[in-house]
Each structure stands twice: as structure tokens, then as C-alpha cells.
């Protein structure tokens, strides 16, 4: 919703950035960078990888901004870049064992993700009731989805994109995105059924 409210001025910002206005480019970055970082962090579950995707995505935008012709929305164009980078990371993980997010320390297990999470729901009693066992099972199931299923699920469930837009971002049809989402939710239902 926040992204949409920027739409009216966005064309002017993009044109200014294309003409070399650095402040305009910075405004564009700030309009989208938190969603980009959230997407990368949730998908990759690694602050270092999310940081790398952030840098690479906005550098590519900067280098190629003049080839942006408004054929699609800037949001779609940016997300194409980000999702491609994230998919590359996810696919690489399929062939090499990834560093675990939970580290064993002298004080007990430490989740590296905790240090980069904003504690939005501090004090929420439901959060305390929510079993750590379920959380770890969900993380495990998310990790077992294929990169495409993971991506479609992330974009729909957490980023709130419509399937039609997801199809545009991933260069596929709405129907294919729907099938992917269907498979992802089916796998999660099967894996988490006992906990619900």
C-alpha cells in the first residue's frame, strides 16, 4: 500500500534519476529498499546473503536505469531483479550445504537471525505461547520447498503480491504461479498438520 501511494510521483522521480539526479535515485531506493531487504531476508534466512542481494540489486538498477522504459511498473522491474538474485542464491544452496542460522555456543544455541529481526511483537502473549517446536518445523518446511515454490509463497503470503503480479515478476503465467502456491501450501499443510 505504501508503494502504491508513491506511484504518482514515481514517474517524475525515475525520470530525474535517469537524468542523473542522485537525490532522486536515493528517494527511489528508500521507497523500496525495506521491502527488498525483507524479501531477501525471509527467503534466504541469512543477513549476509540478504545484504549482498540488496547491494547487487540496487547497483543493477543504477547501472540499467536508463534502459527502463516504463513497459511495466518500476516495482515489477525491481522485483524481477531481486527475485532473480534470490533464486540464484537458493539454487546454489541446493548444491552446497548452507551455513546454519542456529549456532552452537557456550551459552546454548544462538539464532543469528535474532540479531537482525525487529522485535515488532514484543509483549505479545501469543508469541510466548507459540511453540518453538512449531517455529522450527515451519522453518524446516520452508527450506524444503523448491526455490520457485518458496519464491511464490514468499511473494504471496508475506509480500502480499497478487498472483497475476507474481507471474509478471517471475516471467510466468498467473496459472503457473497459482499451481506453485498450491503445491507450496499443500506441502506445508502436510508437514504441519499435526501441530494445528
Amino acid at each position: 500500500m505504501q508503494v502504491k501511494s508513491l506511484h504518482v510521483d514515481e514517474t517524475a522521480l525515475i525520470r530525474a534519476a535517469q537524468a542523473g539526479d542522485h537525490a532522486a535515485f536515493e528517494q527511489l531506493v528508500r521507497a523500496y529498499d525495506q521491502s527488498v531487504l525483507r524479501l531477501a531476508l525471509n527467503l534466504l534466512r541469512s543477513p549476509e546473503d540478504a545484504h549482498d542481494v540488496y547491494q547487487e540489486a540496487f547497483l543493477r538498477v543504477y547501472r540499467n536505469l536508463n534502459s527502463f522504459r516504463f513497459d511495466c511498473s518500476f516495482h515489477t522491474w525491481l522485483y524481477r531483479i531481486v527475485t532473480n538474485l534470490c533464486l540464484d542464491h537458493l539454487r546454489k544452496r541446493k548444491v552446497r550445504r548452507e551455513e546454519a542460522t542456529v549456532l552452537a555456543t557456550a551459552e546454548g544455541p544462538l539464532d543469528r537471525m535474532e540479531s537482525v529481526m525487529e522485535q515488532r511483537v514484543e509483549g505479545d502473549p501469543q508469541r510466548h505461547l507459540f511453540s518453538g517446536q512449531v517455529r522450527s518445523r515451519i522453518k524446516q518446511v520452508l527450506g524444503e520447498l523448491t526455490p520457485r515454490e518458496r519464491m511464490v509463497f514468499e511473494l504471496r503470503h508475506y509480500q502480499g503480491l497478487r498472483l497475476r503480479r507474481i507471474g509478471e515478476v517471475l516471467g510466468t503465467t498467473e496459472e503457473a504461479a497459482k499451481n506453485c502456491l498450491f503445491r507450496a501450501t499443500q506441502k506445508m499443510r502436510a508437514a504441519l498438520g499435526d501441530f494445528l
Partner: protein
Amino acid sequence: MTECESMRARLALLLYGELSFDDEERVESHLDSCVDCRKALERERALHASLDRVEITPSPSLVRECREELEARLADEPRPMAPNWWDKLVDAIAIRPSGGFLRPVGALTLVAVGFAAARMIPAGGDVQGWISAGLALPGHVRYVEREPDGRVQMVVDETRQRIVSGRLDEAPIRALLLAAAKDPGDAGLRAETLEILDERAQSAEIREALVFALEHDPNDGVRMKAMDGLKAFGQDPEVRGALKYVLLSDANRGLRTQAIDLLVGQNRAFDRDMVGTLQEVMQQGEQLSYVRERCRRVLEAMNASIETY
């Protein structure tokens, strides 16, 4: 596959609001009569709620680190090449966004510009030659650029008026109306155009134009017309997205109130997405007291909590 299995396979898409109108209708009428599937829907909601709780929001420190490093890296980047005049001409003529159907017109225009330039502009393309060749001076200079030899190169618009008439189902007429619906200089023209287009709102491209106007038009009256045209499509996912945007962000309270009516209709069943939107409105400022009061009543009717926790 039994009817229950077939319905349960659709529950996730139902919660995401991604079922077609007919499918949603089928699932909901099945749910009315099937206790087991209603329980399955509750389990699906519990799954969604559990998934919500593992979402990570980046900390402000991570955002800050990323921004600082990007700024440093951009300082080392060579400045990207500015687009040349031909790129700008192509860009100026291109119809966008969601105007793919007019791209052939843009392409033809480019060809015509090239052809006319070759035929009409005397050798060297200087203005004096143009005038002496009997051509009218153009009304609008769109782009100007100094060339290395000191000459100036311009892209100019030529305007000629024509009367065009036809029926709404003729593609060129529709294309012109859709362009008029986005004319930035004339709100009255946009409002009249949308009123004409309203009667064909069952067409996806016209609905898309109405949705665009509802979300982006700066004029209250034009957005009102767009909403009128979308009244019958309150269940369409794109229309619902636009209505939620109006409910959350529109500066006009009347439009926001009307958006609640269209979004909720007669349906007071619990709807996770809708409840979230209404709760978001409840968190907005006091100046929206009437809109908030409407939201509060709908939330109560849905047996949903008034605020998020």
C-alpha cells in the same frame, strides 16, 4: 476426488482471495452446509496465522548498514550514460503502462516520423529550409539537444484535429477512449470518458482503466466516476485491491466510506484480509472518525477484534 476433497484443495486460495468469483461462490456455499470442511477452513486459518509468526522484519541497524554501504559503492560507480535523443523519442511515443494494445500505434508513429522527416525536411534539416518548404511551424517542441557542431536538434509534435466517431465495441474507438481516460490535462474529459466506459466495465481492459483512475487520478470527481463503474465488481480481486487502497489512503472520506460498502457488501463473514484492512484504518488518525466508526461496526459484525495486538 470427492466434493469435500475438491473444496478443501481450494481453501488456501480462498484465504488468499485468489479464487475466481464462481469458484469462491461454490466453496462458500459448500462450507455453509459442511461442518467438516468448515473445520478444515479453521485449520487452514491456523496454518496461515502460524506462518505469519515466522516472518522476519529487518532491524533498523541492518537497513542502515545496507544503505551506508550502497551509498559508498554508488560513489565509486561511473555515472550511467544518459539516453540519447532517439531513445527519448521512442520513450515519448511509447504508450504506457498497461497500454500494450497501443504499442503498434506508437511503432507506426515512429515509422511515420522517420518517413515524413526524410520526405519533408529539406537537406540538412534546418528550420529556414523547413519554413521555406511551406511547412507550418510546430506547436510543441518535445525535446532539444545541442550537437557537437553547435547545431540544435529538436523533436517536435505536430497537432491536427480530426473528428472520429464509432461504436464502443470498435477497437480504435476504445483505444482513444482509454487514452482520454488518462489525459492529464483535462479532468472533465476524464470524468466524461469514464462515464462512457462504465457500461463496458465487464471488459478487463476497461476495468483496468477504471481501477487505474480509482487509484491514481488526482481529481475526486473522476475517482468517484471510476468507483461507480466498478460497483458491480466488488468481488474481483483487482477491484478489491483498489478499493482497499482507497479505504486506506484516499484523501476523500466519502470515497473511503463507499469503499467499505463495496468491499463488505452484505457479507459479514470473517475475512482475514478484510479484517486486517479495517484494523489498519482503525489505527489511523482522529480526523477519520466517521470512517473509523463504520469500520468498527463492520469488525463487530464479523466478530473480529477492533485493534491488532
